[in-house]
């Protein structure tokens, strides 16, 4: 009999290590994301955020350590888990020669939706994300913000319980970002869990209930947003402090 997974956290990562050659991109990472949490995963460039999210998505196998998503171990139960996850990956996973409608329908069918259901939901999602204005436009012809909105629409099509999002607001205009935030908050209200990486700390501060900061592959901070806010610091201050990136001036006399 399978153990009940409903009480387990949405994400549990233990001693995760990812080596590229001799270099550790992720080095002994452990954290837990409770269900229904809006979790911000932050870090400077090259800290290991994308590598971590790739491991969560099952694109990159970890060198060692364990991952559990929705109570099920990855990669052993990957197929069961993937069906309950919505992904907003980096742009390389989009298909440039499909239209937005075709792409979202394709993703729906990859999640096992009936063709008619997938087609119907695709039309509705494209209208919701205001991508239905040019139905013949290929994703390759989309702007960066439109591509992110298309990825977001695709992530929602099968009503997932857990969202893994890599920089979902990157390149999205203010109106689009507002819409995306409202949809995500609504999903959290309905019980979904969101795990996102972002460099826009103001957005993370406003949306997330819990944050983790990673630097050089190590977890350097994990806290509830309420605790971060209770001090005199902003999230940006805390971020700069824990990743040790405070500098005075640029240090270049010609600049």
């Amino acid at each position, binding site marked *: 009999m399978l153990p009940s997974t409903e009480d387990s956290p949405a994400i549990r990562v233990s001693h995760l290590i990812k080596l*590229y*050659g001799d270099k550790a991109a992720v080095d002994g990472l452990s954290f837990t994301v409770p269900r229904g949490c809006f979790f911000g995963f932050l870090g400077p460039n090259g800290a290991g955020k994308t590598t971590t999210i790739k491991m969560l998505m099952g694109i990159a196998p970890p060198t060692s350590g364990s991952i559990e998503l929705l109570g099920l171990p990855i990669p052993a139960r*990957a197929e069961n888990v993937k*069906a309950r996850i919505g992904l907003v990956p980096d742009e*390389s996973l989009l*298909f*440039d*020669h499909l*239209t937005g409608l075709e792409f979202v329908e394709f993703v729906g069918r990859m999640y096992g939706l009936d063709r008619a259901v997938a087609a119907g939901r695709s039309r509705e999602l494209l209208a919701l994300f205001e991508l239905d204005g040019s139905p013949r436009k290929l994703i*390759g012809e989309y702007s960066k913000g439109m591509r992110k909105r298309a990825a977001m629409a695709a992530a929602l099509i099968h009503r997932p319980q857990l969202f893994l999002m890599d920089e979902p607001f990157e390149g999205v205009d203010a109106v689009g970002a507002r819409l995306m935030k409202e949809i995500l908050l609504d999903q959290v209200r309905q019980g979904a869990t969101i795990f996102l990486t972002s460099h826009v700390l103001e957005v993370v501060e406003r949306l997330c209930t819990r944050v983790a900061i990673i630097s050089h592959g190590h977890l350097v901070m994990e806290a509830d947003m309420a605790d971060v806010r209770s001090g005199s610091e902003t999230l940006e201050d805390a971020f700069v402090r824990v990743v040790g990136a405070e500098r005075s001036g640029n240090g270049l006399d010609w600049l």
Partner: protein
Amino acid sequence: MWIQARAILWAQWRTLVNFYSRGRLGALIFAILISVLWYGLAAVGGFACAVLASDPKRVPLIHRAGPGLLMFVLFYWQIVPILLTSTGASLDLRRLIVYPIRHAQLFGVEVLLRITTGIEMLLVMAGCAIGLWINPRIPWWGPFVFLPWIGLNLTLSAGLKGLLGRLLARRRIREIAILLLVLLAALPQLLLITGLPVSAKPIVSRLDGPYLPWNVVTRLALGGSDLLSWIALAAWTAAAFTFGWWQFHRDLRFDAEAARAQSHTDEPPSDWLDWLYRIPSRLAPDPIGALFEKEVRFLSRAPRFRIVFLMGFTFSLIIWLPIAFRGGEDSFLRSNYLTLVTLYSLMLLGEVSFWNNLGFDRSAVQNYFVFPVRFTHVLIAKNLTCLLFVLLEIAAVATVCALVGMPITLARVLEALAVALVLTLFLVAVGNLGSVYFPRPADPKQSWRNASASRFQALLLVVHPLCAAPVVLAYLARYAFESQAAFYGVLGVSVLVGVAFYWVSLETAVDAAARRTEDIVTALSQGEGPVAA
């Protein structure tokens, strides 16, 4: 549950429709015509097989020829796509692995896609099957033996593709593996002139073993029904399936980034290497010097360029040996072997240097339009880089020829150099136009696949002879006047014409680039579908 498999095929179909419906009609018609011609030839082969196989009197002949034909089918299906640098269509697992799809489904689609690497052989096999079906001396079930045979080929092909793909994802190993493969392509040519080594004869004789797959399939297809043959067929098919499935599973777990990082070090490049890279900057003032240096650094680090450059002085030498040395000591090709090989190397280099000089480093192309540099300087820098590598290639070819004891004299080297430089002038001039009018995104990490657009490749059928005309004229002049002076005189005039042609084409290309900037940037930003063509 094949919903996802159908969705993948549907998405790929939509990708193709979107791609072709937005392209030029001429290109589509040309692609169709070439396909009809190529597969038409295979269909004629299939028809010939059908006629032969349907004749009851020819059953003994089929018994003798069948294993050879099936062995040819197997090697064609497995090896030729690799040698023709066409991997066919295959799943882009990186994009699909994030979805909840059963691996068996993905494998099923991957195996079906392997058909695209051997449609010609499928037509031949269909001809054989129809012929045997009609043949009254063959039992009705005979042709059905070809089904497991095709399955064996497909699953074996899927396995080999996976194995090769992983091998080629590793730095350094990739170049060696590709080089070995292309040298393998030249092996039959070499054997033609050297003959089969005595040590290889026992191996070749073993290819006729009674339970090897081609012999077993022939025997069973012609109505043989001994149990051992059936067991052997089942064993071979199961082995191929197991190999394909095993390799596919390894592909799913494969982390290309980690593999690439295995041989990567953070150590800075050595001083002497950096000094070499900086030579171009000393030869030309900036911005041409800086662009020239960047091109040299980029190309020498691009696996695809490196492998073609290596092929220039290895594969080219072997592939022309039988033709050049078939004639007597005084034959034209033999006495001009060095020039011949040099020109062939130049043709190979074209694919990775001058025919599509913007598409090859697509990520940098936007910079050329936003930097405060003249586009003329960009193209000149790219052309100078090409010239540098042509000179290095000639030096490498001459060195290898000398090392293996080919008749090399200084006069021959100078002649090869002169001919190659004249031809380069014309080819690079046309290449600048082609790069601007037919830009195509190319991956410098991919060790194979064509880099230039198919329309432009068709044009090359005309361009190559036209560009070679001055060289041909020079040789004709030497033949007619029996004089080296006439030869070099014609080449000298060709240089003058070439320089004028080069400047006109350069100006034309620069003007066209200014008009077509958006088209060029858009064309070079295209990605692919769930199935990589």
